[in-house]
């Protein structure tokens, strides 16, 4: 057990302890990894409904007359002219194309945006955003410490928030949101039809008191299982969603990660890192993320080496598990692009002292089921 004085807790921390969660430090926060078990929680989200405390995530607001222009300058996706209530996924990039972070951008008003960033990157991102903001008429505010967040995920999520929280999510399409008043506490709540599991679901943002109340009612209802970060990782991995630090990093570009669809190279005013991405697209990348199926029961986890047919190290596994919804040993690996074609034969992974043959597969091992 890590005994770190500086470790942060979320507003729901005491509730996790009371539920008997296995806790572990993650991105500077003492977070629940599992309650009943990763497999049980994973299956609850695939088949019914689960609730996650994701209050560790960072939130930054960007407001002002030039907010849209500024966000479009630092963000790979194109938010120009979007309607209020729309959510975008994309990245902030270094000039060389490496990824500062991946994030969600919420358009709250003509001149008002909310950026949701990874917990591990809050300090770095805020510094980076501020450093580029000086030439724009915008106000950037880090509201992470005042914002709590839960994710209600699974095919029954819409029904559960309706039954338990009296919140009607049915008008929202995937990747849209609404700012509402929580009927129970009478306070503002941002309801977003988004998630990180490959299932339908909602993310709820509000001040801690509101989120604590929602969490308590969801848990007491029994309609929704508390889920830890353990299954959040297995769920996102099976549907090919990247985790910053594994599939994206300061040295991995979204083009290399196969996320080019979120990089709008033709935005009229460009964006930071655009030219590097354009060059990678035109000239081809040197490293590429691929899916791997291990043709054995062995599990190739983060850091396992990928070997060429000649036995040379050509890359490493970024995430790997024995799939839960997919009964196979599967992994995502960042490898030398020359070996990254589906036809490539003879690759293997090293796990402890043995090597196992692998086949290249799509990175999406399990089909997403979002509500359109």
């Amino acid at each position, binding site marked *: *057990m890590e005994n770190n004085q500086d470790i942060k807790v979320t507003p729901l921390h005491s509730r996790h302890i009371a539920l008997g969660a296995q806790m572990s430090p993650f991105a500077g926060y003492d977070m629940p*990894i*599992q309650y009943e*078990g*990763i*497999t049980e929680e*994973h299956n609850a989200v695939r088949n019914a409904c689960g609730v996650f405390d994701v209050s560790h995530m960072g939130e930054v607001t960007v407001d002002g007359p030039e907010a849209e222009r500024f966000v479009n300058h630092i963000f790979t996706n194109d938010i120009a002219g979007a309607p209020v209530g729309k959510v975008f996924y994309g990245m902030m990039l270094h000039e060389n194309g490496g990824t500062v972070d991946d994030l969600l951008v919420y358009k709250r008003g003509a001149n008002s945006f909310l950026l949701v960033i990874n917990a591990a990157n809050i300090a770095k991102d805020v510094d980076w955003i501020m450093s580029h903001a000086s030439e724009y008429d915008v106000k950037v505010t880090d509201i992470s410490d005042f914002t709590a967040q839960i994710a209600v995920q699974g095919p029954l999520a819409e029904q559960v928030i309706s039954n338990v929280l009296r919140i009607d999510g049915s008008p929202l399409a995937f990747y849209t949101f609404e700012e509402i008043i929580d009927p129970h506490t009478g306070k503002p709540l941002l309801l977003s039809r988004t998630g990180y599991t490959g299932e339908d679901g909602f993310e709820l943002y509000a001040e801690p008191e509101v989120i604590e109340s929602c969490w308590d009612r969801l848990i007491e209802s029994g309609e929704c299982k508390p889920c830890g970060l*353990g299954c959040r990782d*297995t769920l996102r991995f099976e549907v090919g969603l990247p985790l910053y630090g594994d599939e994206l990093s300061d040295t991995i570009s979204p083009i290399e990660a196969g996320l080019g669809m979120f990089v709008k190279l033709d935005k009229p005013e460009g964006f930071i890192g655009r030219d590097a991405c354009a060059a990678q697209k035109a000239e081809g990348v040197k490293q590429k993320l691929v899916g791997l199926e291990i043709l054995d*029961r*062995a*599990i190739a*986890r983060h850091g396992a080496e990928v070997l060429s047919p000649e036995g040379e190290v050509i890359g490493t596994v970024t995430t790997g*598990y*024995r799939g*839960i919804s997919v009964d196979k*040993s599967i992994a995502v690996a960042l490898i030398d692009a020359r070996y990254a074609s589906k036809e490539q034969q003879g690759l293997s992974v090293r*796990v*402890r002292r*043995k090597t196992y043959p692998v086949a290249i597969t799509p990175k999406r091992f399990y089909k997403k089921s979002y509500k359109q």
Partner: protein
Amino acid sequence: MKTYYNPTHEYARVDGNIAYIGITDYAQHALGNIVYVDMPEVGDDVTAGEDFGAVESVKAASDLFSPVSGAVVEINEHLIDNPRLINEDADKNWIIKVELTDPSELDSLMDEETYKAHCEAEAKH
């Protein structure tokens, strides 16, 4: 038959010069659902205090440290397709069978009483 324990939660159940090596019930409980057991091959040598394989839960791989030295004379092949047998009964479902080369190594392992106290102390942390 007498059972000896490693502080890292492997047991050696000794019958003559044969030791059945597995993980304890405490260890399987801490790991949760076991999805894979990485075992050596028959004929491989294992060394006391050194790793000879791993048990893996969904979340993580845990190395297995041998309590004794010797040659692997049998592996529990049922675990290849059904690693969860360890969750069902960790004592019964040993992982490898080793022919001891140095029975005096057993003297440095924990007996059942000492091991129980060790687990209780660990659970308090």
